């Protein structure tokens, strides 16, 4: 079964914007009740946004892993799971294979995608200088990160369901490319 690419990217965009605004702006009733859900510190806001999006991804990733592996033969080694993640899982979710996979053979993998689907349509306002220069400033990188917390969670969830308990981090310096770092917690 396939899902329209438009609906999934628009839904993800709205979901991220919704979580960001729910953390940074208190809704009317909570303001009156002086609800402690409202967080003032921007650093805390960032952490909570990250946790919310990443947890949602984690839940979905776990369930998807079940769904997507139901007709497969058993994985023999960790590397089979990673291979599954980078080929089948990535293609089903993001429409393509990853572009580069590196490992230190001690439980760390670096996955690079040069044209990552959730970032493909993201673009910042033109600053009027050089149209061909797409460099991001520090503030813009923070905004891009928001759209990567959920995919990070998806990967963490899928790996966890398949038997690798890992931390997943992501870095983007030039959209739409980004680099995920997966560190298995058992490696030490």
């Amino acid at each position: 079964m396939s899902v329209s690419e438009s609906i999934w990217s628009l839904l993800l965009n709205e979901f991220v914007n919704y979580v960001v605004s729910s953390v940074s702006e208190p809704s009317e009733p909570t303001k009156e009740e002086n609800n402690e859900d409202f967080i003032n510190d921007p650093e805390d806001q960032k952490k909570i946004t990250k946790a919310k999006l990443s947890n949602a991804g984690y839940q979905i990733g776990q369930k998807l892993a079940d769904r997507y592996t139901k007709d497969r033969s058993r994985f023999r080694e960790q590397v089979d799971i990673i291979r599954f993640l980078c080929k089948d899982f990535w293609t089903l979710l993001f429409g393509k294979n990853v572009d580069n996979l590196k490992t230190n053979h001690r439980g760390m993998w670096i996955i690079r995608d040069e044209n990552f689907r959730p970032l493909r349509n993201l673009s910042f306002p033109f600053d009027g200088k050089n149209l061909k220069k797409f460099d991001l400033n520090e503030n813009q990188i923070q905004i891009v990160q928001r759209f990567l917390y959920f995919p990070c969670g998806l990967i963490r969830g899928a790996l966890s369901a398949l038997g690798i308990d890992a931390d997943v981090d992501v870095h983007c310096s030039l959209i739409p490319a980004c680099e995920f770092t997966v560190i298995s917690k058992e490696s030490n």
Partner: protein
Amino acid sequence: MIYNLFIFSKDNKCLYYYEWNRPLKADSLDYEKENLSGLLIAICDFVSKISPIKPSFFKSYSTSSYKLHYYESLSGFRMAILTDPTTGDLTDSLEYIYGELFTNYVMKNPLYEIGQEIKSQKFIYELDLYISKLPFFK
């Protein structure tokens, strides 16, 4: 030769304007945008009404010095491109700009809210690239 381009929203706001070649500068660009938007609404309405056979859609008009090409999406976004009067039909190009560039780099951009002016660098870049590659650009 391609002169300039306008994109209007459903409620007549000019979302984007760009000029590639324009020897005679506008006296007041805001005035020009507003009037063009009004003119296009009137023309579209009128050309359809006086059509003798069946309702018809406005595509372009030309004067001694320029030609205006018009495209309207079903959702109400309207685009106009001004070129020199010898340029042929631009419907395909306008459809491409709307269907490929506008929907992908404006509507699907998570940072864009409906009704805002278009500032997305990716859209501006891709549009410029596409227009400047057209055979009748210069």
